[in-house]
């Protein structure tokens, strides 16, 4: 079985290009990852990388924001930008006939943004509005507060990626330019081109627009220290104008490159994902009818990322829901998974891969994840065996190490004023 078998090439200047041909639609998806995520912010300028992501595509040294908009809109292309802890991503899908032109525009945006002052001010207003909207959203408040408490003020995973109103007001155009110049460098760029285009041609096209880009090597950040668990910590953020409370409950876990990653992934799946939310869904939604949604997610990253359990419940059910989460975690720690749960979750994680790789964007995202974590071009072929090899004892051990309720960080945001324990 050949698997995805993408073509990968590192250009002379260090840009990595990964190409994969598909032919379901006459379209091509471009996904560019720059190692310019929010971990490079400073405590004084939280939100700087996000601000760059909102302005990088608003004018280049060759084109105004209006000209760029016209060129993309004319072809039905939406250039999306987003920020994560480690990456600034730019992505779009275009018709195959437009790929040369759109790739040229994308390269221009990545390498020559001009951050026009008027655009910086407009985007500042948008970002402040986004932050205000987050402040009024119990789910966003719960997760932001959870990350702040879990990682503490010294760790960049604890900072708000969009920053605060005050920090965003303190960012000027020079900082945006400086941030871009420092982080957007050829060796820090990975570009996936997936769709109705020959891989050799895709790489040639990328070479023609990115091959001459010069820049120094990106400076990698040393891992920030993770705060040792200091016992259970809880916080309530009352938002009495809301109808429903959001709960974020979790722990710092492992890095994606940790040898036990697949055991953690299986543990997370059977705990809070399988079918309608795994064991947590069975208890809190199906048996007790307390929540429309309850699930867990494992966000293993370059540094140890969180396993976070999320639930939206009536204020009257907050205590009962948290107690139920405690009970389910203790049961998994005490008894480990059943053989049936283990088999089902492993089967699901393996069997769901063809679906994840069905669309161009799905393939591009998968290839970029493998590239970012150094999993290898053949990871799609190796992954089933890696998951199959996970034992019940390894999953049990992951549970014992990762999800002790006595060390949990718990945040409740919404129309709730009680205290938690």
């Amino acid at each position, binding site marked *: 079985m050949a698997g995805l078998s993408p073509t990968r090439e590192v250009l002379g200047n260090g840009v990595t290009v990964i190409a994969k041909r598909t032919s379901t639609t006459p379209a091509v998806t471009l996904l560019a990852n720059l190692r310019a995520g929010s971990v490079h912010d400073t405590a004084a300028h939280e939100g700087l990388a996000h601000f760059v992501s909102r302005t990088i595509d608003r004018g280049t040294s060759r084109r105004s924001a209006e000209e760029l908009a016209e060129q993309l809109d004319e072809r039905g292309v939406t250039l999306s930008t987003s920020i994560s802890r480690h990456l600034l991503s730019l992505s779009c899908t275009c018709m195959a006939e437009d790929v040369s032109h759109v790739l040229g525009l994308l390269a221009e945006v990545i390498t020559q943004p001009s951050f026009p002052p008027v655009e910086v001010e*407009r985007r500042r207003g948008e970002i402040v509005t986004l932050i205000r909207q987050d402040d009024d959203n119990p789910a966003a408040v719960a997760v932001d507060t959870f990350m702040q408490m879990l990682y503490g003020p010294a760790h960049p995973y604890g900072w708000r990626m969009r920053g605060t109103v005050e920090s965003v007001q303190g960012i000027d155009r020079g900082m945006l330019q400086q941030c871009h110049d420092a982080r957007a460098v050829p060796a820090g760029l990975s570009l996936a081109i997936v769709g109705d285009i020959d891989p050799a041609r895709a790489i040639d096209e990328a070479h023609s627009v990115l091959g001459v880009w010069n820049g120094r090597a990106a400076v990698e950040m040393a891992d920030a220290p993770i705060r040792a668990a200091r016992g259970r910590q809880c916080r309530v953020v009352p938002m009495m104008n809301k109808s*429903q409370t959001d709960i974020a409950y979790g722990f710092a876990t492992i890095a994606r490159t940790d040898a036990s990653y697949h055991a953690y992934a299986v543990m997370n799946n059977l705990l809070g994902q399988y079918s309608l939310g795994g064991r947590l869904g069975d208890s809190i939604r199906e048996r007790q009818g307390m929540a429309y949604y309850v699930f867990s997610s494992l966000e293993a990253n370059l540094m140890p990322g969180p396993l976070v359990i999320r639930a939206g419940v009536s204020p009257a059910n907050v205590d009962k829901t948290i107690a139920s989460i405690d009970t389910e975690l203790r049961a998994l720690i005490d008894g480990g998974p059943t053989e049936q749960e283990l088999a089902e979750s492993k089967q699901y994680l*393996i069997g769901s891969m063809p679906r994840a790789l069905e669309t161009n964007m799905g393939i591009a995202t998968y290839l970029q994840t493998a590239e970012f974590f150094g999993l290898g071009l053949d990871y799609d072929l190796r992954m089933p065996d890696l998951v199959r090899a996970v034992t019940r004892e390894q999953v049990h051990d992951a549970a014992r190490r990762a999800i002790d309720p006595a060390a949990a960080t718990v945040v409740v945001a919404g129309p709730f004023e009680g205290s938690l324990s």
Partner: protein
Amino acid sequence: MAALEHAVQTASIVREEVLENGLRVLIQPVHAAPLATVWSWYRVGSRDELPGLTGVSHWVEHMNFKGTVNIPRDQVKGIIEKHGGYWNGYTWIDQTTYTETATRDALDHMLFIEAERMTSCLYDPADCESERTVIISELQGGENDPEQLLDQELTATAFRAHGYRHPTIGWLSDLETMTRDDLFGHYRRFYAPNNATLVIVGDVDETDVMSRVVKHFGWMEPHDVARRPCTTEPEQLGERRVTLSKEGTTAYLKIGFHAPAAAHRDFLALLVLDAVLTGAKGVNLWASFRTAPPQRSARLYHSLVDSGLASAVSGALLPTADPFLYTVSVTATDGVSLDRVEAATASELDRVRTNGITPPELRKAKNQLRARLVFENDSITNIAHQLGYFDTIASWQLSSTLAARIESVTVDDVGRVAADRLSPSRRTVGRFEPIR
């Protein structure tokens, strides 16, 4: 014209069958990945609900995941996941639908599940009670979002008679009082082969699919769905307004205009007009709205976002069986008054109502829509969704001919639709004014 060729090709390879019991079956082989998708569609949505029973269609959808005569309750969990599959369902104003996408070897299993769902769901009283609080939790989660609240209020204000006026999730008092028998009665009435369309797309052989469909569904008896007449919404004679003043941080504006049904000749001209105003979205309820539209050169983006008055603007025109709404939604930039935002929005809408659009704008809108129709059909799940969705509201052929029909829209068509449809006397204005 790659997109148009693709659309025509799609239309030519759909196999349509109708079983003796009235079940409509649409099959389209797509061999891009070793996957198959099944969607079962029922022509019942919140429009079909009577006072006292609002939200019953959606609640019934929830109950139809809780075991059947031949799928015991404790075996529902993992029934698709064991094939690496994904399942879901949704209820909206015109329809209720269920889907599974999994590896192709699960096809027979997926058809079995859908056949069970059509005839043999359990409606255990304890499960009905447990689900009541789940659905109320879903409703309360929606109420946390001021934009969703505003949308609900605006729709209820714009419609006075038609069943589209109440939210699909229902009103709280109905959710608190509805009984198990209400749910079961609704299920038995509307879940019949003659009220359904079954869509199968993927790495399948159509003859094999058809024989499996006959095996699982051919024995079912049709019955009279006894659909009650739906009141035609009377013409709106004057502007309506609704203002929500609640604690919050951000101000929102939403303006709704009565829009044509999907099969009406004006629908596509209004779709083009929306592309000119806010960027093209496409027409796939399942996929189109997950990617932002290409809108930075659109008129309302330019006049509201580029001017700094708003942080976001969007338009929504969804294909529906009866006339629904075209809405424009605006998020005011922090510190900007809603009055200024509303005045600028109204001014831009008046301008297009008076002067129409230009030929270059028409060309760009068509390019955008052509691309979006390709992008929104990039998976078997999405292709099957469109066939079933359009079959529920009009006919599946309508979706396959969209690209060609959009190409025939003229500047005059769009100008006429703007003049007719965007009249201030026919609009409903909704405002969310935050109290800080």
